[in-house]
């Protein structure tokens, strides 16, 4: 309940003042730290240990370990039941490459004008996504599609909603050099990073065989970092490993509806990854005023893929609203209901789409839709969220200026309201 007493009004005022002061400070903070200041440089040392869940091997690389390695599955694809293995994944990067990737990922120096980082659209506390229908790029305008989560990307073999990249490295250069996203160019990016002494040091450590910073090394370290975003310890996973009390009765009911051949959710969102890594045409609507998004038709130059998009993982799905490629569905209930409304119900007039055969009219009851949503919450696991750097080699604010301001504001609110409690 909101209780406007004099204390809270003072608190509000103070927070406004604080945030104003901070924004003034932060506004100035878009200049790169290009001074060869050895004291500043000394503050940055790349890690020598692997992230949690990774084992340091004798050759100095990190390999992923997880409980699903106890299981086998048909064709090695890692699809199907509760106890199946995971598909092939990316690992084998060194701790230094992973840690360098972490700095780069959160550093706005990677964008054309130092205003946004990879993490601007893939924020750790928002399921490595943002809470927008479509992300806002460097121009301040919305881009074409929503930001997909990065959790468990190590297991994927297609990237972007339309599946146009096959590797994380190939994916990385997409947003970096897209005019609407980070707006950078290879030349400008290399110039920027080469001017930052800390990065020059770091790249030497992470890539001892390269004599200068290259785009390949940048995308490799971004891939290295992203391949450590592992989410496989949710309550669902405990259930899968045999602890059946990990889910309550409703959640198990939800799981059973989810995997039933009436709802058919699990046919495309197959455990344990909760995606089958395929492209599917399901006919979700685009927001009003937006032209129809042809999706994977362009990627594969095949009309039959018109309106086709990658099946996204549902891990940490509760954290990444709104949903679908253009973010048209505000919550999980609405997204679940879409499938219940009938095959092709949202296809715009004049479009002829080859809707996936799994999409039909399941005719689920409202109660059953609620139970599916309840089950989806059990897929949340952020225990391996990597630490945000406290400062960056570039001297820029971590993630971006807006984010830093917001964090500062929250900090001030906590401080002020803490005083209020006393």
């Amino acid at each position, binding site marked *: 309940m909101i209780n406007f007493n004099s204390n809270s009004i003072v608190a509000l005022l103070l927070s406004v003042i604080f945030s104003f002061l901070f924004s003034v400070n932060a506004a100035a903070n878009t200049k790169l730290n290009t001074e060869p200041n050895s004291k500043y440089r000394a503050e940055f040392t790349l890690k020598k*240990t692997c992230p*949690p*869940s*990774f*084992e340091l091997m004798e050759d100095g690389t990190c390999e992923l*370990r*997880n*409980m699903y*390695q*106890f*299981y*086998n*599955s*048909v*064709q090695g*694809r890692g*699809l*199907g*039941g*509760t*106890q*199946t*293995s995971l598909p092939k994944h990316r690992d084998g990067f060194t701790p230094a490459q992973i840690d360098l990737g972490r700095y780069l990922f959160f550093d706005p120096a990677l964008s054309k004008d130092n205003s946004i980082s990879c993490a601007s659209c893939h924020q750790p506390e928002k399921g490595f996504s943002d809470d927008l229908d479509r992300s806002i790029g460097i121009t301040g305008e919305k881009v074409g599609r929503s930001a997909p989560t990065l959790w468990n990307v190590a297991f994927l073999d297609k990237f972007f909603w339309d599946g146009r990249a096959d590797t994380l490295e190939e994916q990385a250069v997409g947003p970096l050099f897209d005019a609407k996203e980070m707006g950078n160019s290879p030349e400008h990016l290399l110039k920027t990073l080469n001017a930052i002494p800390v990065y020059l040091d770091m790249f030497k450590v992470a890539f001892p065989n390269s004599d200068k910073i290259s785009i390949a090394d940048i995308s490799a370290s971004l891939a290295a970092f992203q391949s450590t975003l592992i989410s*496989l*310890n949710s309550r669902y996973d*405990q*259930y*899968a*490993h*045999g*602890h*059946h009390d*990990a889910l309550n009765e409703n959640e*198990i009911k939800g799981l*059973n*509806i989810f*995997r*039933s*051949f*009436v*709802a058919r959710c*699990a046919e495309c969102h197959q455990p344990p990854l909760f995606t*089958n*890594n*395929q*492209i599917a*045409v399901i006919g979700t609507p685009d927001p009003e005023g937006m032209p129809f998004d042809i999706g994977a038709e362009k990627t*594969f130059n*095949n009309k*039959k893929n018109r309106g*086709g998009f990658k099946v996204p993982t549902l891990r940490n799905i509760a954290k990444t609203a709104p949903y679908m490629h253009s973010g048209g569905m505000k919550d999980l209930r609405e997204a679940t209901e879409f499938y219940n409304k009938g095959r*092709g119900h949202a296809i715009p007039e004049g479009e002829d789409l*080859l*809707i*996936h*055969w799994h*999409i*039909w009219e399941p*005719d689920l009851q409202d109660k059953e839709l609620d139970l599916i949503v309840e089950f989806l919450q059990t897929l949340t696991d952020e*225990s391996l969220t990597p630490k945000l750097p406290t400062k960056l080699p570039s001297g820029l604010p971590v993630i971006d200026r807006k984010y830093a301001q917001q964090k500062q504001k929250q900090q001030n609110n906590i401080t002020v309201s803490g005083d209020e409690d006393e």
Partner: protein
Amino acid sequence: MSKGKILGVVLIAGAFAVGNYWGGLNSAAVITSSSGGASFSGGYDASKDAELNSDPVVIEEMKGEVIVVNDGESIMAAVKAANPGDTIQVMPGTYHETVYVDKENISIVGVIKEGARATLDGKGILNDAVLYSGNNFLIDNMKIIGYKGNGIMGQAGNNFIIRNNLIVDTGVYGIFPQLGKNGIVHHNIISGIEDAAIYVGMSDNIQVSYNDVFESVAGIEIENSRHAIVENNYVHNNTGGILAFVTPGLPIKTTYDVIIRNNFVVDNNHKNFAIPGSTVGMIPAGSGIVIWAGDEVIVEGNIITNNKTAGILIAGHNDFGKGSNDPESEPNSDRTMILDNFMMNNGHDTIDEVKALLLTEFKTGNADIINAGSGVDSCIINRHRYVTAGINSWKECDFTNTKDIKTYLLDTPVPARVIDKSERGKIAYLGVCTGCHTYTDRMIGPPINIIQALYMDNPEGIAEYIANPTKKRDDYPEMPPQDYLDEETRLAVAKYMLSRKN
């Protein structure tokens, strides 16, 4: 695909065929005896299955308890109470529930008393009757009626046996093992299914035999699966009898090495009542055996009669249906092999596309074998017996029977993956514990070196604590219990934790 388009494809195919036809006309029949001669030597070579050769482990026999479920009680409650190895005996009566089995080595056996069966009745409300994901699952003697989804659905369980079940009007699939290896579906009676009565999906090493499937859209469907034998089934009055398909858009992309032999495939003329959009919705009523993008399918010794469209239809994704949007799935039916079959009175009321294909070869008879696809390396013996179209380029098979292949089932069950105890500890430690603990630094939980100091020679103490943690430190959050790890793994983790040096 529209009729016009199909006709177009047919005409083009026909133009190629005409040349071949004139060459073959009036040549004497090659009569081959299928009782002698060479046997098929291809197929599945078990010795090359590395997984099996590595360290075969015979899975424990079913030697657990017997749990009896009486009418009015819950089968699911019995499954929850069961331990691996237990058998659940279901007495005659009506059970209104969805039974899910996420455990290994569970048997559900219906008891039949004077013809009365244990009946699972979905009353048109419940989704699926039985879902299993555990390995070594057996279900026997059940009657299943009135579910919206599937009768029995498997989700990646290996070594399954589904037999002696009576399944009527259960919606989409009667029996649907998916993503499993080494399974038997036999002696089931199934009817009234909107898609396939028996649908083997994305699986390996499967035996489907002695089933009676009728009045469904598809009788038996082998889809995106390998090393499957479909034999001795009675497949009648479905829209399509036996299907070997590659459905595009699925993560497992191939169907090959399928033997369809010694089945009765008769009178499959039922009106197609498939759900709009389903793959089988395209099947013309009266299709005996349909091969659609499946490779290395052998059709042998079947009695294929009175299927009004054709006895055997062979096509690829681009020839028939809506085509493929999947660049990774190869669209053609390659290496089809047709040995002796008894075929009679098929294609007596066929579709225009089949008529047109026959016409391209100047034939008007009742269609036994129709190939509308452009697959390669197919063969046939005794082709003179049948009315055919599109097979003039096929070779004579260099074998005449498959009698050397008794089964594709494995000699020993697919073993569970065996991981050395020390490895088990390491994986659980790295996979779970390191989310909250590092060696020297404070994370969510205390550092490992402090835990080591406390429990030096006492791994059992750690194992006990992680199963039932209590709050010990004011400045740390309470640890959630890790009792989902089994006892052995908990001790292995504890030992591994104590052995860490960084």
